[in-house]
């Protein structure tokens, strides 16, 4: 259902080979750990073995005495920052917390938290040095579970943490960092007016983003403080900003060169190793490389929150939703910042509901600090609401898609979080799902079909793009957006479309912080929309310049020059074919017409188009073992406009698969001492390829009017519906509803046996 064959555009909507493809499939692409510099030292991080402990002292003298060790750093090598929430990264940040997460200062708050780091002439010496650092810990009681952490008698992680958003302001510290409430209409009256009310409790577990490439960083600080960082991240400018703040450096002292990125999914929107590498380089005068093992990735980075939730939904007998309320307790990990607020904002967003309320709690506990993960917060609360809606549909005897269609948000519908929706394509996704052959395909014994929908805001934000026309008429398109999902292809295609030239003549590049203007990180499904808009404007800037150059050569006014298909034509009345000028011809004569041809756009883009998706999932449950197999899966999504449909489909499939893993098997297993027991892909069970059918995709295009080609963000919304789509399918296949994720075989078998007894 893409626009292939519609002949609307030359490049937009087609599926060319990606410009970065050859490097990636031949192994030539340089990822974070692939850089090597002369004299480079190997760094290693010492991590807390305790879930919660006071650090009484650190003695590195024996490590420093080991031949080959060049430096040991601790929190003492970093400035102690004030605790204040400021704008930065993807959401407001507290740099004191980021600093302490990078290297523990007074307390270790989770197992795996960095406590010290070593630089040595070899990795094995650095490794040996870690064992020679003596840390005197006072082990403290710890708490892992979110509800346990909320109890008044729970061990307190931050002695100065007073819950915000509560009146009157509490006087006693707790693990609840914040309470947030959203209200619309009168929920209590709404429930009174309802014929049917469904009220349920749900839990989800924290899950890791599971990117294949572990974190890696190399830093080299010169004697004058000028510092270069090579690393894999979702934002080179974010790395620069965070390192500058954590180390009291100026932005201009730092140059961050983005490496190729082997997956991020939100998990690479913060710093872990980069500030340590800079501090070690500062202390040794040498470049220092730090690379996490998979074990460290699991213990010390990501994940997203686990949660405990209560949902109540009221409806009329005819299926009209009257009221909904939601209470969310999200675990943030060791420092505040769970996505409880977006959890509150998103779950009811697909529905036109007069009365709604959502309350979110941001709760700390002794586990790794949460990082963003694809539509942060939304899959969790959506699991609860979309599961409850499925039960409501069953209670009302309604088709679950019909229930959603009856209440679907449209242009003008007010969302609980405030705004009225502009043009959106939710209804179109529901109708496409209903019409899809999957929805009416017969099911076999022990199989069930679940559906669920989801919403994500998508964002715009600041982006810079520059286009340089080379002397031979080829073009460089430079942006500041790391390419996670094929964005270089999309940038080149949009530039080629606007310029009217062959895609092969356009080379996209991700610039470093010193070679392109500020660009917000790759996140919020913003790049093809916002950076893409900057690329289109930069290309329009080029077109204007090309017309001016042609006008100069023709000695006419710019209004007498038309730009079409990469060629300047004289305006009406001047049809002499000999006076046509191609882009290559204008480029070749640039020196005579005013010098180099460079276009740019630096924008703060608003008007991101919200995205909605509807998923259909068929599962088969083995009633004797509780094992669930996904046998068919279809993703329907409004993407606005698919620039490169293959990468749009890839996003839809990838999001669905990550959500399926979240639903079925992924979880952190802790020992009684609060140590992670499954820090590896063997026992942290993400789905493998053979677990899944080919994920079918249906691209729905309801263009976003604020983008030149109608783009909406596509990367995040596909992870929102799968949790409930799977759970609803399991419930319909097995007759047993499990409201606690993951629906792993032991959990489902136990539920099946209880139901039988």
């Amino acid at each position, binding site marked *: 259902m893409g626009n292939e064959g519609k002949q609307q555009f030359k490049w937009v909507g087609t599926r060319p080979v990606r410009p970065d493809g050859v490097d990636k499939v031949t192994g030539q692409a340089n990822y974070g750990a692939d850089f090597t510099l002369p004299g480079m030292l190997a760094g290693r991080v010492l991590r807390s073995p305790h879930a919660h402990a006071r650090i009484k002292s650190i003695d590195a003298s024996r490590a420093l005495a080991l031949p080959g060790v060049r430096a040991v750093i601790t929190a003492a090598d970093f400035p102690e920052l004030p605790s204040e929430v400021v704008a930065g990264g993807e959401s407001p940040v507290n740099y004191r917390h980021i600093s302490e997460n990078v290297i523990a200062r007074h307390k270790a708050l989770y197992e795996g938290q960095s406590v010290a780091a070593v630089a040595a002439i070899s990795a094995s010496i650095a490794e040996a040095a870690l064992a020679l650092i003596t840390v005197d810990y006072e082990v403290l009681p710890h708490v892992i579970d979110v509800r346990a952490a909320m109890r008044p008698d729970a061990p307190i992680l931050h002695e100065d943490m007073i819950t915000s958003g509560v009146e009157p302001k509490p006087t006693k510290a707790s693990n609840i960092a914040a309470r947030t409430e959203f209200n619309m209409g009168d929920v209590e009256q709404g429930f009174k007016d309802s014929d049917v009310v469904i009220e349920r409790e749900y839990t989800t577990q924290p899950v890791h983003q599971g990117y294949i490439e572990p974190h890696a960083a190399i830093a080299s600080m010169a004697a004058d403080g000028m510092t270069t960082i090579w690393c894999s991240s979702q934002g080179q400018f974010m790395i620069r900003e965070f390192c500058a703040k954590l180390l009291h450096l100026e932005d201009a002292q730092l140059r961050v060169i983005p490496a190729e990125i082997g997956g991020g999914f939100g998990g690479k929107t913060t710093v872990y190793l980069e500030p340590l590498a800079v501090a070690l380089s500062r202390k040794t005068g040498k470049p220092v490389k730090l690379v996490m093992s998979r074990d460290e990735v699991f213990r010390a980075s990501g994940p997203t929150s686990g949660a405990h939730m209560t949902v109540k939904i009221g409806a009329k007998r005819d299926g009209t939703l009257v009221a909904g309320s939601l209470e969310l307790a999200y675990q943030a990990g060791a420092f505040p910042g769970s996505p409880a607020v977006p959890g509150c904002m998103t779950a009811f967003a697909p529905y036109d509901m007069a009365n709604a309320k959502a309350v979110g709690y941001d709760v700390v506990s002794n586990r790794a600090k949460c990082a963003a993960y694809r539509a942060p917060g939304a899959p969790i609360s959506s699991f609860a609401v979309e599961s409850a809606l499925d039960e409501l549909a069953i209670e009302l005897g309604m088709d679950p898609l019909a229930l959603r269609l009856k209440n679907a948000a449209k242009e003008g519908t007010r969302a609980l979080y405030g705004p009225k929706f502009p043009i959106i394509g939710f209804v179109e996704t529901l109708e496409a799902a209903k019409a899809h052959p999957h929805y009416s395909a017969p099911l076999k014994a022990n199989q069930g079909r679940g559906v669920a929908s989801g919403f994500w805001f998508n964002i715009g934000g600041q982006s810079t793009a520059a286009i340089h026309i080379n002397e031979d008429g080829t073009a460089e398109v430079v942006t500041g957006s790391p390419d996670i999902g094929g964005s270089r292809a999309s940038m080149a295609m949009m530039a080629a479309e606007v310029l009217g030239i062959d895609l092969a003549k356009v080379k996209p590049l991700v610039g470093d912080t010193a070679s392109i203007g500020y660009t917000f990180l790759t996140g919020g499904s913003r790049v093809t929309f916002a950076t893409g808009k900057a690329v289109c404007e930069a290309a329009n800037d080029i077109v204007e310049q090309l017309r001016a150059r042609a006008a100069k050569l023709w000695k006419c006014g710019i209004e007498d020059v038309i730009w079409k298909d990469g060629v300047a034509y004289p305006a009406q009345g001047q049809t002499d074919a000999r006076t046509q000028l191609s882009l290559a011809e204008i480029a070749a004569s640039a020196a005579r017409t005013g010098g180099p041809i460079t276009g740019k756009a630096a924008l703060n883009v608003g008007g991101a188009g919200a995205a909605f998706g509807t998923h259909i999932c068929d599962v088969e449950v083995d009633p004797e*073992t509780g*094992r669930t197999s996904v046998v068919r899966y279809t993703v329907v999504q409004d993407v606005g406009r698919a620039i490169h449909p293959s990468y749009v489909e890839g996003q839809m499939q990838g999001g669905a698969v990550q959500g399926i893993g979240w639903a079925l*098997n992924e979880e952190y*297993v802790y020992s009684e001492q609060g140590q992670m*027991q499954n820090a590896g892909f*063997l026992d942290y069970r993400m789905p493998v390829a*053979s*677990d899944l059918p080919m994920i079918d995709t249906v691209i729905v295009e309801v263009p976003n009017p604020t983008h030149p080609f109608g783009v909406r963000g596509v990367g995040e919304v596909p992870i929102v519906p799968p949790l409930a789509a799977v759970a609803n399918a399991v419930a319909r296949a097995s007759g047993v509803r499990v409201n606690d994720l993951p629906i792993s*075989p*032991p959990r489902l078998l136990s539920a099946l046996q209880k139901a039988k007894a």
Partner: protein
Amino acid sequence: MLTFNNPTTVEEAVALLQKTDSRQRVLAGGTDLLVQLRSGRIQAQGVVDLKRIPELRTIRTENGGFRIGAAVSGAELGEHPALSTMWPGVIEGARLIGSTQIQGRASLGGNVCNASPAADGVPGLIAAGATCTIVGPGGRRVVAVDAIAVSPGKTSLAPGEFVVDFFLPAQAAKGGDAYLRFIPRTEMDIAVVGAAVNLLLDASGVCTHARVALGAVAPRALLVEAASHALVGTRVEAAALEALAAAARAACAPINDKRGTIEFRTQVAGVLAKRAAIIAYERARSRA
């Protein structure tokens, strides 16, 4: 510093393992050993690689059965048509170890001597009544496969000993075996429960002999005698299968860990024993 030797004869290997009193580790495929060394879970001062010894790398027919070198890879086992036809259950187990890449290296000898209770290669061998030849400073000895593993990571091998080969006897004319494991995914995982069944039928289709082995439900793979009794004298019909499941469950002594719970492992052990018995029965019946 790690020493590395790759002898080409059994005698040379025995001498190398005997020569030093330092911690020498025997390597066949290395798919467990290298992971354990790298993670720091075990330490070693030297590695003796047995893959260059021809005797450990060959599959030979012997008295109607098969003698399998301890370092023969899973892929090689799977590509041996006669062996796969006679002992499909044993081969199913061996072929489940790791990924396609791991299959090019992983060996039965390593799978048995790693002494994991969840080893996929072991229950099938036990059910088949396989024996193995052990060599060491004291010469050669032959023991049943179920006598090797003692507890997780521990074997009954004396210092300096290693497994040379396995002997799978000739399968009876009306015999069949099968192995099933439970994992939450479809591959790249470790058995939460494993069950192997090997049985013989008489001309009328009645089971005359059965061996049932379970993995991952006790500190080592178990040969469950009571489960065998449940099948002998039956046509592996519903009542026999229920008795088999009950006997299998009664034998379980699992733990709660990251891979499964006691209740789950116990319950599923019965389910897999039944399912493996049905497959083994069909295989035996379909034999000429």
